[in-house]
Structures are given as C-alpha cells and as structure tokens.
C-alpha cells in the first residue's frame, strides 16, 4: 500500500445557510490520479479551495504527509508542495508567459524585500536561475515559442497549458487541477490526459476535478463522487460507472448508464 499523501477528516464548510462541504473524509495515496466528480454545485471547487488554503474549513482536518495543515494560508500550502490550477484560468495577463512561470518559483527562492531593493548579487543570480528553470519547463511543455508573449494574448488552450506549467514550476508533490479540460476540444483534451498521466509518472500525485467523463474514466486510478457536499461513492472508475447511487444523482436517469458522457 502506497503512502497516504493527503487526507481529509470530516471536512465541513458553510456559505451562509448552504452546507457546501459535509463531513468529507477521503485519502489520496502517493502516485495516483484521483478524480473528483459530481453535479454542478456539489462542492468540488470548495473542497479544492479548502485543501489549497484559499478557504478555511468550518470543521474537520486536512492532513498532508502526516502534518495537520488545516487553516494554513495558500502560500504556505504552496511552499509545502501543493500546487493548483483554477477553473477559469488566472494568468497574470499583463506579464509575459515566462514571467508568469517565474512568479511560481517564489516558494523555492529566498531573496527578500530589502535584498531586492539593494540589488545584491544573489538577487540576480537567483532570478537568473528562476528564469532558466521557468524556461526549461516551458520548453518541456512545448511553450517556449510564446515565452515572451503577454499571457493575456494566448489562445484558450495555450493559456490552460501555461497555467499548468506555472503550477509545475512550484515543484509540487501534489497537483490540484480544477476542471483542466473545460473549454478544450477533443484533441486538446486527449493531449491533456496524456500530459496528466506523464505528470503522475514523473512522481507527482494528481487530484482532478473534471466534468469530462471520458477523461476521468481514462486517466483516474480512483474516483470520488460528491453530491450536495457529501461523498456518495468512492472507488475505481469501473465500479463508479456501475454504482446505482452515482447513476441516480449524477446522470439523472438509468437510460444513460451505458453512455455516461452524455
């Protein structure tokens, strides 16, 4: 049994009267791709925000590599090795693609405000190293040709890739992908699936919120199904596809059971 990388215990979050995440308890083993699916409003993104520290839970615990990280700030969570992407890409539109990725080196570099102001030699050495590493990541992902372009001018598909490159630049152990295939065409989605699989093979554990069922069924080792903030099923994709409760809440009626994409 692989090491449990991330664990949530009885996680809860409210928005006013809405119980967005209810008693969510699940584990994520190192080296797997786990999918989170569920109808709109099921609490998937909220769960992501809780893990990434963007929201504080109203109950429960988040444990990462045996360490309690409940209520940690996002930058501290990132420094620990958890990176995320956003459902709608949040690139720094007026910065170049290269600069976008360089920002992501922040948690792995040290020079502070004062050193920066004084322009100490180590500031420049460090920045050069960040630039080289960022460029290497862009090259690896086939984005080197747009390194100097303003991120706001990228096509939708490329913007998604840059956001992924940016997350990778933080040197994560765990990657949280929030609907990475949203807005991509079939070919781009296939490429993305391949990319996520390669990422996993390079040793990075992935947690993926996704609506594209074929992608989820293709790449995920395990799937968690959320409905109204609650986990209603968890298991390998094959089992999930046949789970009557999942079919009821997620697909609406049994006629579609054999064709979950629709």
């Amino acid at each position: 049994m692989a090491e449990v990388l991330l664990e949530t215990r009885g996680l809860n979050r409210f928005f006013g009267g809405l119980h967005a995440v209810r008693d969510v308890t699940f584990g994520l083993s190192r080296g797997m791709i786990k999918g989170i699916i569920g109808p709109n409003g099921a609490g998937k993104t909220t769960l992501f925000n809780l893990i990434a520290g963007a929201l504080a839970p109203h109950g429960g615990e988040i444990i990462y590599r045996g360490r309690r990280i409940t209520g940690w700030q996002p930058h501290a969570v990132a420094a620990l090795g958890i990176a995320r992407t956003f459902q709608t890409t949040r690139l720094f539109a007026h910065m170049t693609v290269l600069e976008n990725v360089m920002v992501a080196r922040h948690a792995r570099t040290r020079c502070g405000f004062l050193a920066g102001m004084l322009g100490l030699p180590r500031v420049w050495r460090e920045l050069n190293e960040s630039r080289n590493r960022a460029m290497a990541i862009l090259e690896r992902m086939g984005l080197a040709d747009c390194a100097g372009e303003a991120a706001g001018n990228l096509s939708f598909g490329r913007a998604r890739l840059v956001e992924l490159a940016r997350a990778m630049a933080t040197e994560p152990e765990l990657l949280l992908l929030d609907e990475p295939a949203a807005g991509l065409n079939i070919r781009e989605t296939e490429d993305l699936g391949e990319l996520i699989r390669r990422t996993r093979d390079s040793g990075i554990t992935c947690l993926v919120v996704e609506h594209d069922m074929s992608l989820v069924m293709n790449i995920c080792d395990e799937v968690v199904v959320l409905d109204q903030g609650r986990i209603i099923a968890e298991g390998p994709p094959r089992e999930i596809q046949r789970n009557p409760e999942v079919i009821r809440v997620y697909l609406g009626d049994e006629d579609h059971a054999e064709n979950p994409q629709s």
Partner: protein
Amino acid sequence: MRSLRTYAPLLALPAVAVGLHGVLAAEGDIARMTQLIMSAYYALVVIGLCLLMGYAGQASLGHAGFFALGGYVSAAMTTCNLLPWRQTTAVRLCEIAGLLIERKDPFGMPLLSFSPWAAFATAMLVCGAVAFVIGVPVIRLRGHYLAMATLGFGLIVYRIVLAAAVFGQADGISNVPPFELLPGLRIGGSRAWRVENYYIAWGAVMAAMLLAINLINSRVGLALRSIHESEEAAHSLGVDTYRYKLAVFVFSALLAGAGGVLLTHYNGSISPSEASVMKSVRYVAIVAAGGMANLWGALGMGMVLNYLSLRGQFGRYDEAVFGLILIAMMLFAPQGLLRPVDWSVVRRLLAGRARNG
C-alpha cells in the same frame, strides 16, 4: 537581466540634472532651481506611490499624510526648545548621545533642540510605525476600500496638524533650521547653497529610483506585479501577498516621509496644506499620468507637473488641472485607474473624431 537597459536611464539622470542647470545658468535664472528642488522632493512621494499603486495595484489616497507626518515631526523636533528641561535625565541623556544642538533662534534667543539627523531618523521611525499599524488592518482591504481607508488616514493627519499646538495649528511650523548632511553640506533655502541643494535633491531622487528599480527587477518585483494581476493566483503560487503588500505600503510611506523631511528643511517651514487630501489626489494623478506601472513616467510627470504647478503655470486652476488629469486617465485607461494607459483607445477616439468631423 541585470542589463544596461535597466540602469541606463538612471545614468542619464545626472546628465539631465547638469543639462537643466546649464539651461538655467544660460538664462541667468538660477532662482528657478528652487521649484526643481521642491519638485524633486515631491517626486520621492510619487516614486513610492508608483511602486504601491502602479506595480502592486494598491491605491492610496493618504500619502500626503505620510509626507506631512515626516515633515512635521522633523520640524517640531528641530524647532522645539528643551532648555527649560535641560536638567532632566531624559534631556541630559539625549545631550550625551549627541542628539541635541544648541543654536540661536531668529530673534537671537538661545535654543536647545534636536539635531536634524536625530529628527530625520525619528520621522522615519514614526512614518514607518504609523504605516505599519495602519497597514496591518487596512492592507487586507482591496481596491477602492483601501483607497477609502487611506483617505480616512489622510483626513485624520490633516485635522491633527490643524489642531495640535505642537504643530503650529493653521500657521504650521516655520524657522526650521537647515539640515547639515555633512560638514559644510546643508539642505536649506539660502541663496548661497542653492546649487548644492539642487544636486542634493537630484541625488535623493536617484537614490530612490535606484532602490525602486532594483526592487522592480527582483523576485519581489515579479511578486508585486503578480499581486496586481491576480492576488488569488499569486497567493496560490507561494507569494505571501499580505506581507508584500504591507512591506511596499510601509516603504512607500517611508519615501513620502523622507520627501516631507527634506522639503521642510529646504523650505524652512511646513504648513497644513501639505497634509491636505488635495495633495494626496495630486500624487495619485501624477502616478496615473505617468502610466501607472512606469517608474520613469511617474518621475517625469512628477517633475514636470509639480514644476509647472509651483511656477504658477496653472494659475488659480492648480488643483483643477490635477482633477482633469485624473478624469482623462479614467477615460483613456479603460481597464481602470490601476492599469497602464491604453494608447490604442486614445488613437481610436482621435481617429473616430477625425472621421466624424
């Protein structure tokens, strides 16, 4: 990218200073240096505000408050008279530490007050501490909420300097002594020192620009710009957004305070108008006119607009001109005040007018 392109403009600044000196000398009008010196000290505020607003995207309508705070603390400390308390332990300790100077006031009466260096250091401490204390709760606010909160701070400082006896109420503080930086090198308004003061002021601007340029071209500069673009994304990538926003807020307040101290010693006085909200609005307008995330634009606009204003070129419409600049920026920077000017919009507007006309 420690390149010539980053620093070349900084090397050009001394040339600009010498060139302007040459022009004024040729015209036989060295007196006009005074307005350039004053503009340079105001430009310190603008440089700090450019970092805060243009790069980090945090608007402040209270920077005149920090400018005045610096100026007033320094003025009050260098004009107070500690002679009646000379025997107290505190004053004696200060005297032993070399913080006090004995001199005569303009009426020939003996005076024991703090040395300008001690006053400068204290003013910086006060500005930094006040910015920190205000920043801790306020910097969490975003966009116009932060602007409103800093506006409140500016109003408070204005009311305090108008009301407090130690700050001279409506008269302000005059007879502020020159600031002896080095033996024989003084910041002060005397005619005999004007040329030295002109180069001291440019030196201060260059020092501030050097710090600002270094910062912008460091990892911290990238972080500040990323905060401007998307605080949430920056935070998720490991940028401690709150700490950086607070740091740049405090630094910009220190620069504003330093400008206040230096100008007060140059002028020999400070009045409540320096703390007025109109001054804060003016600084914002200058940064906007300079193109927001553009240090050189801000500096250029700061020098030119303040110089014209101090020369009385805007006449009775002085404040109105800065209001007009703000309106123009709102129109031509459609992504909001906190973005660089979008020249394509200007071109389109002009082209549209040409077609219609």
